[in-house]
């Protein structure tokens, strides 16, 4: 696949993930946004997305030294967003990841004012591709 060449939104990895998920929620029609994914599946999805959107691997650097692609940035971002109360995981198997209401507030009040139109469009495209790849519940 030919990568889409663009300038990248200048966000820290956890903010980029937060924005992508908040925009995915909006595209999905608002309300509860939840998906079923092991960490390894999420890594694979974002690794695939990184091949399509060339700014993404600059935010989430992937290591290919092991058998499967792995981005510590993505792994840390998921952990940080959980710790910050923007993401939740459903007990007891932790397979279902959902956005908490704070995630939308953080995007609208904190991230969106820092993003230009082009960056938002970039993030929206990734959000749309993410929805197509993930198992929504």
């Amino acid at each position, binding site marked *: 696949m030919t990568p889409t060449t663009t300038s990248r939104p200048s966000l820290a990895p956890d903010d980029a993930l937060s924005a992508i998920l908040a925009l995915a929620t909006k595209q999905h029609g608002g309300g509860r946004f939840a998906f079923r994914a092991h960490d390894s599946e999420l890594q694979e999805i974002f690794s695939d997305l990184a091949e399509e959107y060339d700014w993404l691997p600059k935010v989430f650097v992937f290591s290919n*030294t092991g058998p499967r692609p*792995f981005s510590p940035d993505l792994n840390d971002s998921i952990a940080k967003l959980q710790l910050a109360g923007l993401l939740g995981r459903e007990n007891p198997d932790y397979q279902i990841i959902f956005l908490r209401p704070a995630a939308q507030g953080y995007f609208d009040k904190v991230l969106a004012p820092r993003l230009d139109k082009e960056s938002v469009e970039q993030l929206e495209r990734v959000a749309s591709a993410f929805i197509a790849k993930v198992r929504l519940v």
Partner: protein
Amino acid sequence: MRTAGGPLVSLHERVDKFVEWLFQGFEPIVPRGSKVFNDAILGNQHFARHEVAVIDSPIIQRLKRIKQTGLVHFVFPSATHSRFEHSLGVATLADRCFSAIANRFAAEFPQKAFPANFDRLSGHLAHLRMAALLHDVGHGVCSHGAEQIYQALTDLREFKRDERFVKNAEGEILSYLIIQSTTFRRWFDQIVIGQCHAQIDLNVVGDMILGQHQDPQLYFLSQIVSSPFDADKLDYIARDSYYCGLALTVDLARFYSMIATAEEKAKRVLVLRSYIPLEQILFSRMILFSSVYQHQKVKCLDMMLRGTIQHILDNPDQCAVEIRGAKVTFNDAIDYLYVTDDEFFNMQSFGDPYVKKMLGRFWRRDLFARCVEVSRMTVENWDGFERKIWMDYGRDFQQLSAVEDEIYKRLDGSVRSKCNRDDIKVSVPTLPAMKKDFAYIQTSPTAPVQTVEEFFPLEQWAESYGHNKWRSYVYAPRELAKPVADAAVKVIEDIGLKIKRDVSDRHCHLT
């Protein structure tokens, strides 16, 4: 006098200069033979003659003066063990893992040849043991305590954005660069290869320290040194918990009986035949983090160290020190390698009165006190997005400094006159990175290789335990705790978090 590095001199060159400085005046001695070291945790440890040469070199001897757990010994008094004994332990455990894997391979695949050979002088095992022995040579003063300071200062960050180094901690990258340095390579060629007749390729050793291997069939060897269940963790969990007096355990005999290798996407990877040993590793590690590494007094000590070094950074002319001809200002990651723990806390050459006062506090164990706690128990709007804003200040200490500046400015004039700006410290800890890469489970030689979370959500459980134990604090000298708390609460509320003052005061013993 060593000239300051600066951005125009590459990290490689600055590391070269450090190793050259470290080896100055060192007369290489060829050991007469092998040695046995007796260790409190692992018992007898055997090292071959060429390994003794490396152990006796300045690169490893320096680690005797760097405590394994940084400033933890101020809280857990017997935790005075060093990176030196840990390095020997990792080499021994790496060897035991190798033997366990080979034995299992022979039992499970009697018709196949094990892909790695046992030669301790030139074979794969020799390389593995050397990588394990050298994996921590990049640690500097106060170990991880200083790592969080220098990682914000330096071009090491550029390495961390490189695909090859992205999975590695700063200390691992420095270890890699040290063993690639001209001086070390020259010494290694002369003594280890030339005199002790070992045949070890330092490029392979360097790759293993980074958790990499050029040969996909030998990838598992690098995982013994750096992976979710590497020899490093096996040693530090046992060693740190023992010296801190915590009754944690990893059943090593059980672990060895469960470790194996398997093919995964054309690479031979480490697998466990059961998740039970990994459960012990993860939970022991989590308890070590919450009880020891992130103990509120340990974080306080880390913050006091940061305050001291921040003051040195802000006043380089009056605070620079000379260590055996090297001028150290702490404005570069490499500076932290020149100084060992004993030298830092005994530095009489620090002319600056604030630094002297702070070192005196460490000597007397006159620690700062908690003024405000930020946690799920003390914040009213914990479910709001403002929690994320607060946590973002923990991304680097320059952002935290801005919060500390604001608290200092809000102090009443009479209080401010008794308080140094660096006396106010905010700790917003990051969670321990529970995962540097995937851990794999394969329940039998014919079963599919699965990531551990596909099998059982161990890592997520450990992570959520960490979330519930997470605390952020504002610290200040005890005599200023109350007025600093008043000012800090106002600053935190301006950021958007509503502090339950009565609960915070109670937790911080201000009432």
